[in-house]
C-alpha cells in the first residue's frame, strides 16, 4: 500500500521526518517496506518556454535556443529536433543535478555558449506512466500554460515522499489513506481530521434514473448507489492526478480517477456504470446463470458459473461483482449518465471467483479481506462530492441503499488486570482506554465493555485488545522475564532422536558427508533406477498442484537423489565422494481415504571413487557396532534390479530385512551418469532404532593368556566366508575368542573353481590357562567340521 505523505497530511499533522514516521509506524504495527522520495535526485530543473530557435552557425545538427525561465532568458544549445518555438520544456540550469548523479555546467558547443540543458523524459527518470510523452525519444514537451520558472518537481508532482506499507491480511482498514492516517494519529499522538463529506447541489431523484435489486444478499450484504447526470468526461485536475500517480495508480479520466481516489482514500472499491448501457436502468445483483459469459474491461471473454456473483442489468451481466466491470457498460468519452456502485460483497465469494477466473484485481484483493459494511454510503457520497468539486457532472438527489440485515457490533469485556497479567506489564487502565478511543472503539468504563467499530473485523476478543494496547505501548517496553515460577520440565531427546544423532556421527566418522535432498520428485525417476513397472514403489502420493512434473510426487525411494548427488559431483570432476542422507520416504497407505501416508526414515549411503564393496559394507558394520546391534548378517541379494546381481547384499537385522548394500547396476550407472563402481546402501532407520542397545556393561579384562592357531584350506568358489565362519563357531566350543580372516587367494597352485582361505583362530578361557591339549581338541573338531560340512581341503 503506497501512501504519499502529502496525502496523509490532509488528515493528520505530521510533525516528524519521513524516516522517523516510517520507523514509528513500523514499530506500532504498520511495516514500512520502503521510503521513496520522488524526484529526490533532481535539483535546479525548471519549466522553460522556448522563445526562439536558430541554426547553429558551426554545426548542422545543433540549434541555438533562447529559453524563458521566468527570472530571465538563457541561451541553450541543443541537438533535439522535436521542439518548436512556444513549447514548454524542462530546463536543467547550470549547477543542477539529474538522476544518476549527472551535473550540468556551463559550456560551449562548437563555439557557442550554452547555459543549460533541455531534458528528455528519460533524463528525468520519467516514464509514460508518470507523464504523457515522457517515454518518447527527444525533449519532453510539457503541457501548455505551466508557470515558467516553476521547479519541475512541483510542476510534475514529484516533490512527495511515498511510504510503501506491507499491510497484513487482518487489517483491510489499513488499505486506505484514511486508515493509515488513523494509525498515524494514534502512533504520533496527534488528532485525526476526517474529510468533511457533503454535496452542495442536487438535482432530480436518483430513483428516476435507476433501481437496484439484490437477489443474493448472502453474497452481497449491502449495495449502495448514486447517479450523476450531464457528465463531462475529461482529464482530472493535476492535484488529483499527482495524488493517484504518487500512490501508484495511473490517471485515466475524471470519473475513473474519482472511483480510484475514493478507493485509495476510504478503502472502498467503487465502480462506475454508463447507465445508457444498463438495460431497463435496472441493476440486479445475482449469481451468474449456468454458461453465462461476460467480456470484462480487459477485453477477455469470461465464462461464469453459478457460484459467482454478477452485477446485471435487466438482461445480462455488466460486471463480475467485486472483481472487474464489463466492457459493455464501460465509461467512454461520450458517457452522459453514470451510476456509482459502492457495495459490500462477501470476501470468500470474491476470493473464490477471482481465483477461478484467474484475475486478481485491486478491488478483489480488497474485498476478499472483508470490508467495512458501514463504509459504502460514505464512499459513494465522497464520489459525488468529488464529481461536484471537479465539475464533472450534476449529482442526483438520494442514495439507493440495499442493506437488508444491519450488521451487529461486537462488544468485548475488558479486564485491565488480566491484560497486564497476560502481557507481563503494568500498564495503567487509562492508557488502555485512551488507545481504544483513539482507534475509534467505544469504551463503557462502567461495564468494562469495548465496542469495536465495523472497520475492525480482526478484533474479536480480549487477546486482540491486548495487542492493540501492546503495540501502542511499545512491544519493546515489555520487560523480559523467563518463565520464572512456572512448572519445570526436563529437556532431552527421545531414544529415536539419540539413535539418529549416533547414526550421523558414525557416518561422519567414516568419512561420509551429510546431504539434504528434495523429498518430492518426478515419476520418471523409477525408470532411472530400474524399478519394475509393477513395483509397489510406483504407488505414490501425488501433489495436486505441483511446481511442475519434476516435483510432482512424494518419493518412495531415496536412490535417485543420491545418484543425482553423485552425478553432480562426478561431472564436476570431483574424483571421490562419500555421502549420506537421513531422510524420509512417503509410502501411501492403501486403506480408506483420509489416512496419512507412512513417513519412513531411511538412511542412504552413496560412495564413488577409489572405493569397493567392502568399504561401504565396513561403514555399515561400524554403524552396527556403534549402535550395539550384534544380531545382524549380510546375505547375497541377486535380484534387486537397481543393483549389480553379484555384488549386492541384504542387511538382515534380527532375522528381518533391514536394508540393501551394493554396487549399482551398470545400466543404472549409465542412465544416471555416475561411475560404474558406485556403491549405494539404504537402511531402515526404524529397524536400527528398534534393535539398538546403547547400554554398556563393563566386562573384566582377560586374566589368562590366549592361544592362537592358523589354518589354511581350499574350498570351492561358491562356499561363502560366512559358511566357513559359522562352521568354525559351531565346532570350536566355548573357548573360541575370535576368528580372523587373513588371506583369500586364487591363482597359481590353487585348482580352478577353488579358492584358498586362511584364518587365525584365537582361544581363551576366563578361568584358566588353556593347555595345548584342550586347544588341539577344539582345533580337531573344527577341522573335521570344515572337512565334512564344506568339503574343505586343509593345507599344511
Amino acid at each position, binding site marked *: 500500500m503506497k501512501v504519499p505523505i502529502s496525502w496523509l497530511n490532509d488528515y493528520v499533522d505530521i510533525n516528524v521526518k519521513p524516516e522517523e514516521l516510517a520507523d514509528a509506524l*513500523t*514499530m*506500532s*504495527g504498520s*511495516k514500512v517496506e520502503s521510503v521513496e522520495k520522488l524526484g529526490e535526485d533532481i535539483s535546479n530543473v525548471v519549466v522553460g518556454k522556448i522563445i526562439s530557435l536558430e541554426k547553429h552557425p558551426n554545426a548542422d545538427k545543433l540549434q541555438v535556443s533562447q529559453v524563458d525561465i521566468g527570472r530571465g532568458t538563457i541561451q541553450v544549445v541543443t541537438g533535439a529536433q522535436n521542439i518548436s518555438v512556444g513549447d514548454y520544456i524542462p530546463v536543467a540550469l547550470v549547477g543542477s543535478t539529474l538522476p544518476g548523479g549527472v551535473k550540468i555546467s556551463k559550456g560551449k558547443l562548437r563555439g557557442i555558449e550554452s547555459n543549460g540543458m533541455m531534458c528528455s523524459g528519460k533524463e528525468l527518470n520519467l516514464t509514460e506512466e508518470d507523464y504523457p510523452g515522457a517515454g518518447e525519444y527527444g525533449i519532453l514537451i510539457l503541457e501548455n500554460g505551466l508557470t515558467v520558472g516553476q521547479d519541475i518537481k512541483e510542476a510534475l508532482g514529484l516533490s512527495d515522499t511515498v511510504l510503501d506499507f506491507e499491510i*497484513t491480511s487482518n487489517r483491510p482498514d489499513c488499505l486506505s489513506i484514511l486508515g493509515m492516517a488513523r494509525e498515524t494519529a494514534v502512533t504520533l499522538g496527534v488528532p485525526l481530521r476526517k474529510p468533511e463529506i457533503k454535496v452542495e447541489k442536487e438535482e432530480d431523484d436518483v430513483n428516476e434514473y435507476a433501481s437496484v435489486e439484490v437477489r443474493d444478499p448472502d453474497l452481497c450484504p449491502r449495495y449502495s448507489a448514486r447517479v450523476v447526470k450531464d457528465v463531462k468526461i475529461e482529464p482530472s485536475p493535476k492535484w488529483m492526478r499527482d495524488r493517484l500517480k504518487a500512490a501508484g495508480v495511473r490517471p485515466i479520466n475524471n470519473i475513473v480517477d474519482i472511483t480510484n481516489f475514493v478507493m485509495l482514500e476510504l478503502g472502498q472499491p467503487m465502480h462506475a456504470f454508463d447507465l445508457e448501457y444498463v438495460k431497463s436502468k435496472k441493476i440486479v445483483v445475482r449469481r451468474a446463470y449456468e454458461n453465462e459469459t461476460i467480456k470484462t474491461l480487459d477485453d477477455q471473454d469470461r465464462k461464469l458459473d453459478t457460484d459467482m456473483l454478477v452485477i446485471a442489468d435487466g438482461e445480462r451481466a455488466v460486471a463480475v461483482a467485486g472483481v472487474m466491470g464489463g466492457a459493455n457498460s464501460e465509461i467512454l468519452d461520450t458517457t452522459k449518465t453514470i451510476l456509482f456502485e459502492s457495495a459490500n460483497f462477501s*470476501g*470468500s465469494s470474491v476470493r*473464490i471467483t477471482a481465483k477461478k477466473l484467474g484475475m486478481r484485481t485491486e478491488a478483489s484483493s480488497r474485498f476478499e479481506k472483508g470490508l467495512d459494511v458501514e463504509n459504502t454510503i460514505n464512499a459513494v457520497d465522497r464520489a459525488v462530492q468529488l464529481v461536484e468539486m471537479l465539475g464533472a457532472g450534476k449529482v442526483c438527489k438520494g442514495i439507493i441503499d440495499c442493506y437488508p440485515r444491519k450488521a451487529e457490533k461486537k462488544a468485548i469485556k475488558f479486564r485491565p488486570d488480566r491484560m497486564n497479567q*497476560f*502481557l*507481563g*506489564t503494568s500498564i495503567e487502565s487509562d492508557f488502555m482506554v485512551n488507545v481504544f478511543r483513539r482507534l475509534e472503539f467505544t469504551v463503557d468504563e462502567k461495564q468494562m465493555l469495548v465496542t469495536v467499530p465495523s472497520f475492525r473485523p480482526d478484533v474479536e476478543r*480480549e*487477546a*486482540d485488545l*491486548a*495487542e492493540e494496547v*501492546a503495540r501502542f505501548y511499545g*512491544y*519493546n517496553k*515489555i*520487560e*523480559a*522475564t*523467563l*518463565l520464572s*515460577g*512456572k512448572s519445570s*520440565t*526436563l*529437556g*532431552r531427546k527421545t531414544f529415536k532422536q539419540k539413535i539418529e544423532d549416533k547414526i550421523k556421527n558414525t557416518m561422519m*566418522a*567414516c*568419512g561420509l*558427508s*551429510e*546431504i*539434504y*535432498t*528434495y*523429498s518430492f520428485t518426478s515419476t520418471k525417476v523409477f525408470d532411472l533406477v530400474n524399478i519394475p513397472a509393477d513395483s509397489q514403489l510406483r504407488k505414490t*502420493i501425488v*501433489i*495436486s*498442484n505441483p*511446481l511442475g512434473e519434476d*516435483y510432482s510426487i*512424494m518419493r518412495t525411494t531415496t536412490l535417485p537423489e543420491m545418484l543425482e548427488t553423485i552425478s*553432480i*559431483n562426478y561431472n564436476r570432476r*570431483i574424483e571421490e*565422494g*562419500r*555421502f*549420506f542422507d537421513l531422510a524420509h520416504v512417503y509410502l501411501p497407505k492403501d486403506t480408506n*481415504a*483420509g489416512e*496419512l501416508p507412512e513417513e519412513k526414515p531411511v538412511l542412504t549411503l552413496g560412495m564413488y571413487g577409489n572405493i569397493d564393496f567392502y568399504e561401504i559394507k565396513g561403514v555399515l558394520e561400524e554403524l552396527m557396532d556403534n549402535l550395539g546391534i550384534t544380531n545382524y548378517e549380510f546375505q547375497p541379494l541377486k535380484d534387486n534390479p537397481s543393483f549389480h546381481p553379484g555384488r549386492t547384499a541384504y542387511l538382515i537385522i534380527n532375522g528381518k530385512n533391514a536394508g540393501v548394500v551394493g554396487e549399482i547396476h551398470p545400466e543404472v550407472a549409465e542412465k544416471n551418469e555416475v561411475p560404474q563402481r558406485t556403491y549405494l546402501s539404504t537402511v531402515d532407520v526404524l529397524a536400527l532404532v528398534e534393535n539398538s542397545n546403547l547400554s554398556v556393561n563393563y566386562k573384566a579384562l582377560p586374566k589368562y593368556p590366549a592361544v592362537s592357531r592358523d589354518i589354511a584350506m581350499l574350498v570351492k568358489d561358491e562356499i561363502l566366508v560366512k559358511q566357513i565362519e559359522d562352521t568354525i563357531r559351531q565346532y570350536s566350543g566355548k573357548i573360541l575368542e575370535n576368528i580372523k580372516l587373513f588371506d583369500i587367494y586364487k591363482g597359481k597352485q590353487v585348482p580352478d573353481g577353488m579358492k584358498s582361505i586362511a584364518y587365525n583362530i584365537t582361544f581363551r578361557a576366563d578361568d584358566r590357562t588353556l593347555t595345548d591339549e584342550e586347544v588341539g581338541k577344539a582345533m580337531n573338531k573344527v577341522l573335521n567340521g570344515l572337512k565334512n560340512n564344506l568339503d574343505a581341503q586343509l593345507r599344511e
Partner: protein
Amino acid sequence: MPSSFKDEGFFSHIRRIEKMRDQLNNIKTQAENELSAVTAIQELENLRVKFLGKKGELTSVLRGMGSLSAEERPVIGQLANEVREFLENKIEEAKKRLVNSERNKKLADEVIDVTIPGKRKILGTKHPLSIVIDEITEIFLGMGYEIAEGPEVEKDYYNFEALNIPKNHPARDVQDTFYINENVVLRSQTSPVQIRTMQSKKPPIKIICPGRVYRSDAVDATHSPIFHQIEGLVVDKGVTMGDLVGTLEIFAKGLFGENSKIRLRPHHFPFTEPSAEVDVSCWACGGTGCRVCKNEGWIEILGAGMVHPKVLEECGIDPDVYSGFAFGIGAERTAMGRFNIDDLRLLYENDLRFLRQF
C-alpha cells in the same frame, strides 16, 4: 733400612718395587691415552681385555707381586687397585661417550621433513542446515524443551483449520500450499506439530519442532519449495508475553552471540495474538549498519506471539486458565546468514566442495 742400604739385594729390591710402580703408572698413562682415542664399542672392549683382562697387562704386573715382601705388597696392591678403578671408570666414561655419539649419529640419520603433510583420515561433514538446527535444538534442550516431531504430509485440519486459518481465509494466500487432496496438504509450517502436541498432552508443554516444510515457491537464490523451520511452543499457567521476550533474548544470545539484542515489531499471524516479527541486531556490524543488514542494523529472523485463545480452545485448553507463546525460525535463512551463503540452491545441490567447508 740403613743397615741394608748398601746391600746389593736391598737395591735390587728397591728397583723391583720402583719398576712395578712404574709399570703400573705406565699402564695407567697408556690406557688413558688409548681410551681417549677409541671410536667404537668393539675397540673399547678390546682395550678392556688388553688392560684388565685375565691375560691383560695389569694382571701380568700383579703376577710379579710374589717377589715382594709382606710390607711391600699392600703398597703395590693398593696402587694396582687404584689403577684398576681408574681404568674401569675411564672405560665406563668412554662407553657412555661412544653410546651417546652412536645414538646421535643414528638420530642424525633419521631426520625427516616435518613439513610434509600428515596422513589424514577423511572425516565426513555435517550439513550446514543440520549444524544450525542442532545448535538451536541444543539451546532449547538446555532450557527444558523437548523435541517434538510430526508428519510432513499433513491434514488440512492440523496445518490450517486448528490454527485459526479456515478454508478460504486470505492468510492461505500468503503461504502457497501444496495440496494432495482437499483435506491433505504438504505442511506449510511446523505448527501442526504444536496442535498435535497440545491435543495429546496436558500443560505444562515446552517443545520445539524442527522439521521440513513446503511452500509453492519457484526455486531461486532465495527461495525453495522445501525448507526447514524450527518452531517452539510453551503452554502453562501464567505464561506472559514478557516470558516470550525473555526466551527469545536468551535464544538470540545463544545463537548469534552474547551481545545480540532483539527487537519485536507488531505483526499478524492467525495463530498468535499478539503477534510479532522479531529482529536480531546485525551479527556482522553489531547494529551500526552494514551491507549484511542493508544498513538497517537489524535482521529479521523470527515470527512469534502469544498462542491465540482460539487455538488453545481448539486443543481443549482453557485460555482463561492457561496461556502460552510460540515462535518460529527458518533454518535456511539462519544458515545463510551465519555462514554468508549467498545462494540457497547450494544447500540442496550437495557439491562436496561446498559440503566440506562446514
